[in-house]
C-alpha cells in the first residue's frame, strides 16, 4: 500500500478482451481516495466500462483476456479473490436497470445480495427499509419491479448493492436511460452516499453538468489510457480539452470561451458553473445599452404550407386502464422541425405511435395528409411516416447493412432491384455509412447502428420522420453527428418530429416545441415562447435550456435580454458589447 487514504489503486494495468484485437486498457495507473466522488468521462469505447469491471474482478474472472499489472480494491488483489468476495467491498451498478433487478418484489430484490453473502436474517430485515430510504424508495418494499419507472429501477439497483454494505460504489453510466429530473435525483442520491454516508463513489458518465456539480475529481479516458486527471472546474474551463476528449462542455463555459475567442472580451478564468457564468456575464453587460434583438425571426411563416398531421381531440387509454393521452389537438405543417419534450411517462411515445397507427385512438381522430389513420394501416402510412426508434437493435435482423435497408423498401414501397440499390446507396451516403454496405449490422458501433436505422427510414423517403431520443447513450461526438444528420434531413424537406430529453438540443435545433405533461399539451409554440414560460416548464418537471436560464437570471438583475438558443445569446451579447456607449 502506497498510501493508506487510497481505497482503489490500479498499477500499470493493460488488458485485452479475449475476442479483441486492440487492448482495451493500456498501462493504466490510477489511485482513488477513500470517500471521494470520482467521475470517469471520455468517448464511447475509451475504456470506461472496462475500467469499472476491472475494479470488481469481473475482469479477469468473468471476461477472460490478457491482463498485466495489479489492481487493489480495498486492500484485496482482484486477481486473487472471487468476484463474490470483492462484492463485499465494491458494488457495481450497470447501465440497464432491467437486467440488474432479480427479485419479484422490491424487498426480495434488495434482500438478494445480502442473502447470498450469508448475512443474518435480522440484519437483512433491518437493512432493507434503511437502504430503500437512502435511495428515496421508502415504503416501496412490496412493489413489483416491472411497474417502476426507469429512475426508480435504477435507484433500486443501487439499493440492492448498498444492502451488501460495500465500501465503494461503482456506477456505469447509470443515468443514460433517464429523463433530466430522474438523472438529477440519481446523482443527488450518489452525492449523499458519498458525502454523508462515507461511500467512495466512482461513476462513468457522459453528463457534464452533473460531473461538474457532483464530483471531486474527474478522470478522462482516451483509448484505454488516462488522458487527463484533475478537478472538474479545470476540465470544463478548458473547452478545447473537452472537445478533444469527446466531452460536452457546459453550455455557459463554451459560450464564454467562444465570446473570448471573438476578441470582444477578455475573461481571466472561464467560469464553469451556471451561477458563476451568469455573474461573469452580468459584469460584462452591466450598464451597456439595449439593442433590440430579433432572435425570434423564424416566427410562424409555416402557416401557408400543407398540413401533414392533424390531431383532433385524441384520447388514449391502455388496456390496463391507464389513460396516457387526454384530449390532444394539434396540427403539424410540412417542413416543421418539432421537438416533443416532457418527462418519462408524459405520453410522448404513445402520441407518436398514433401517427402511423401502431396505436388507434380510444377517442378522437388522427389525420395524416388528410387520411384518417382509422382507414389506413401501418405499412401504408409508412410511406408518409418513417419512424426511427430509440434502440436500433430492436429492428436489426438482417445479415448485412444492405439487406437491412432493403427490408423496408420492399415492404413499404414494393421496390426492389436497381431502384432499391440506388436508394440504398443514396441513404447510406447520406448518413455516412457507404463503406459499410456489406458489413454485418451487429459489427457496427452503437452510433453507427443508429445511423443505419435512420438510413433505412430515409430510403423509403417518407414526408415525415419521427425520431425517438436519437442521442440517448451517445457521447458528445456521436450526439453532434446525429444532430447534424437530423438537421440535414430537415433541410432536405422532411418534416421532423424529434422526441428528446435534452432541452438544449431542442432549443438549438427545433423550430417548434411541444411540451407534453400527463397526456396533455402543456405548451406548443416556437422555442422562444415555450421556454420562457417557466411556470409550465416547472409543472412539467423540465429545466429550461441554458440560454433561457441565463437570460431569465439576467433579466431579474435588470438586463433585459431574451434568448433560448446559445447562438442567439451570443449574437445579442456580442452586439451589445460592440455597441458600447
Amino acid at each position, binding site marked *: 500500500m502506497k498510501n493508506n487514504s487510497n481505497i482503489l489503486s490500479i498499477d500499470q494495468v493493460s488488458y485485452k478482451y479475449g475476442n479483441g484485437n486492440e487492448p482495451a486498457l493500456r498501462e493504466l495507473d490510477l489511485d482513488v481516495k477513500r470517500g471521494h466522488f470520482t467521475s470517469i468521462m471520455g468517448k464511447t469505447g475509451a475504456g470506461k466500462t472496462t475500467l469499472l469491471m476491472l475494479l470488481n474482478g469481473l475482469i479477469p474472472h468473468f471476461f477472460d483476456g490478457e491482463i498485466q499489472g495489479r489492481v487493489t480494491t480495498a486492500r484485496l488483489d482482484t486477481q486473487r479473490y472471487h468476484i*463474490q468476495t470483492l462484492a463485499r467491498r465494491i458494488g457495481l451498478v450497470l447501465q440497464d436497470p432491467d437486467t440488474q433487478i432479480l427479485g419479484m418484489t422490491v424487498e426480495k430484490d434488495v434482500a*438478494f445480495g445480502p442473502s447470498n453473502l450469508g448475512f443474518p436474517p435480522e440484519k437483512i430485515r433491518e437493512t432493507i427499509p434503511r437502504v430503500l430510504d437512502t435511495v428515496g424508495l421508502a415504503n416501496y418494499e412490496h412493489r413489483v419491479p416491472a411497474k417502476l419507472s426507469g429512475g426508480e429501477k435504477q435507484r433500486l439497483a443501487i439499493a440492492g448493492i448498498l444492502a451488501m454494505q460495500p465500501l465503494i460504489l461503482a456506477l456505469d453510466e447509470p443515468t443514460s436511460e433517464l429523463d433530466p429530473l430522474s438523472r438529477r435525483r440519481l446523482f443527488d442520491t450518489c452525492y449523499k452516499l458519498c458525502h454523508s454516508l462515507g461511500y467512495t463513489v466512482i461513476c462513468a458518465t457522459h453528463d457534464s453538468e452533473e460531473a461538474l456539480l457532483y464530483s471531486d475529481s474527474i478522470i478522462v479516458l482516451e483509448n484505454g489510457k488516462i488522458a487527463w486527471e484533475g478537478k472538474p472546474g479545470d476540465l470544463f474551463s478548458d473547452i478545447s480539452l473537452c472537445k478533444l476528449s469527446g466531452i460536452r462542455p457546459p453550455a455557459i463555459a463554451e459560450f464564454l470561451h467562444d465570446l473570448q475567442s471573438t476578441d470582444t472580451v477578455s475573461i481571466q478564468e472561464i467560469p464553469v458553473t451556471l451561477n458563476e457564468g451568469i455573474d461573469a456575464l452580468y459584469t460584462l453587460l452591466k450598464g451597456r445599452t439595449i439593442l433590440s434583438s430579433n432572435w425570434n425571426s423564424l416566427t410562424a411563416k409555416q402557416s401557408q404550407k400543407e398540413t401533414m398531421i392533424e390531431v383532433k381531440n385524441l384520447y388514449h387509454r391502455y388496456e390496463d386502464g391507464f389513460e396516457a393521452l387526454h384530449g390532444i389537438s394539434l396540427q403539424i405543417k410540412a417542413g416543421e422541425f418539432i421537438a416533443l419534450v416532457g418527462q418519462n411517462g408524459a405520453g410522448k411515445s404513445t402520441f407518436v405511435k398514433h401517427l402511423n397507427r401502431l396505436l388507434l385512438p380510444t377517442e378522437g381522430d388522427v389525420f395524416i395528409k388528410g387520411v384518417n389513420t382509422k382507414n389506413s394501416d401501418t405499412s401504408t402510412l409508412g410511406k408518409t411516416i418513417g419512424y426511427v426508434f430509440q434502440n436500433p437493435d430492436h429492428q436489426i435482423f438482417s445479415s448485412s447493412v444492405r439487406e437491412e435497408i432493403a427490408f423496408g423498401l420492399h415492404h413499404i414501397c414494393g421496390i426492389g432491384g436497381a431502384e432499391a440499390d440506388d436508394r440504398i446507396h443514396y441513404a447510406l451516403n447520406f448518413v455516412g455509412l457507404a463503406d459499410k454496405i456489406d458489413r454485418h449490422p451487429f459489427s457496427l458501433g452503437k452510433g453507427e447502428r443508429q445511423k443505419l436505422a435512420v438510413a433505412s427510414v430515409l430510403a423509403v423517403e417518407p414526408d415525415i420522420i419521427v425520431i425517438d431520443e436519437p442521442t440517448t447513450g451517445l457521447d458528445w461526438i456521436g450526439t453532434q453527428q446525429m444532430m447534424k444528420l437530423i438537421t440535414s434531413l430537415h433541410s432536405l424537406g422532411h418534416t421532423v418530429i424529434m422526441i428528446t430529453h435534452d432541452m438544449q438540443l431542442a432549443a438549438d435545433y427545433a423550430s417548434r416545441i411541444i411540451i407534453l405533461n400527463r397526456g396533455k399539451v402543456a405548451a406548443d409554440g416556437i422555442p422562444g415562447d415555450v421556454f420562457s414560460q417557466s411556470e409550465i416548464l416547472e409543472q412539467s418537471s423540465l429545466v429550461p435550456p441554458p440560454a433561457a436560464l441565463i437570460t431569465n437570471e439576467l433579466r431579474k438583475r435588470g438586463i433585459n435580454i431574451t434568448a433560448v438558443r446559445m447562438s442567439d445569446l451570443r449574437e445579442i451579447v456580442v452586439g451589445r458589447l460592440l455597441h458600447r456607449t
Partner: protein
Amino acid sequence: MFTHSNKNIGFLHRLDVRTKLCWFIIAVTITFLLTHPLSGLMTIIFLLVLFNIANIPFIHIRRLIFLLLPILIIMFVVTAFSFSVDDQSNTQYQRVLFYLFPGESSPLTVGGILMGFSLVFRIVIMVMATIILTYTTPVDDFLHFFRKIKVPYSITFIITTAIRFIPTMETKARMVMDAQRSRGAPLGTGSILKRIKSYLPIMIPVIVDSIRMSEYLAVAVLNRGFDATKPYTILEDIELRQKDYVFITAGILIFVISLFLYVHNIGTI
C-alpha cells in the same frame, strides 16, 4: 397465472403450499376413483365454493374452458359412442339408445354418456384445481417447497429469474414488433410458410437481445454475490400451522371415504 397471487389475500392464500398441494392431489385422484358423473359434479360444486372463498374471478375459468371446449366436445362424443357394451358391471348402463351406423355399430349407450361426462368433468376439475392452486399461492411458496424437497438453489433461481423476466421480455417483444411494423413488416399473413417467415424480423432481434441480456444478467448476479457462501440466508420460510394439519387430516379423511366407496362400487360406473 403465477402473477395473480399478489392480490387480495384470503383464507386459502394463508394455507401452506403443502396443504394445498395435498388437496390438489386428493381432488385429482378422487376423479379417477369415483368415475360417476355425479361424484364429479359434487367435486365441481365444491371447487366452485372454493373459487368463491378465494375471490377468484370466474373469467379465468370461463376463458380456459372456452378454449378447451372443442376438445371437451370431441372427447365426450367419442367416449359416448365407443364405450364398450361388454365390460360393464351394471346392466342398466348397457342400454343402447341408438346406433350411429347401420349394422349395430357405434352404439350410444347410457354408460357411454355417463363416461363421457365423467371424462369431461375430470378435465374441468383439473383445470379448476390448478387455477385455485396457482391463484392462491405466491411463486415464492412453490420455491420454498422446492427447497424443502431439496431441489438445488441454482435450479430454483433459474425458475424465479425466468418468471421475473416474463414482463421484461413482453415489453421488449412489443417494442420490436412496433419497430418492424413501422417498416411495413407483414405479420401473420399469407401461407403458413410465409407466416412463419414473417415472424423472423421479430424473433431475431428478440433472441439477439435476450442473449445480450443473459450476459448482463450473469454479470449482475455475480455483482450481487451469488453463490458467495453456503448456506445463503433464508429470510422467509413456509411453516405448517394448526389449520394446515386440520385441513390435511380432513383431506385424508375424504380420500379414505372415497377409497371405501370405490371398493364398494358406489359412485363409480
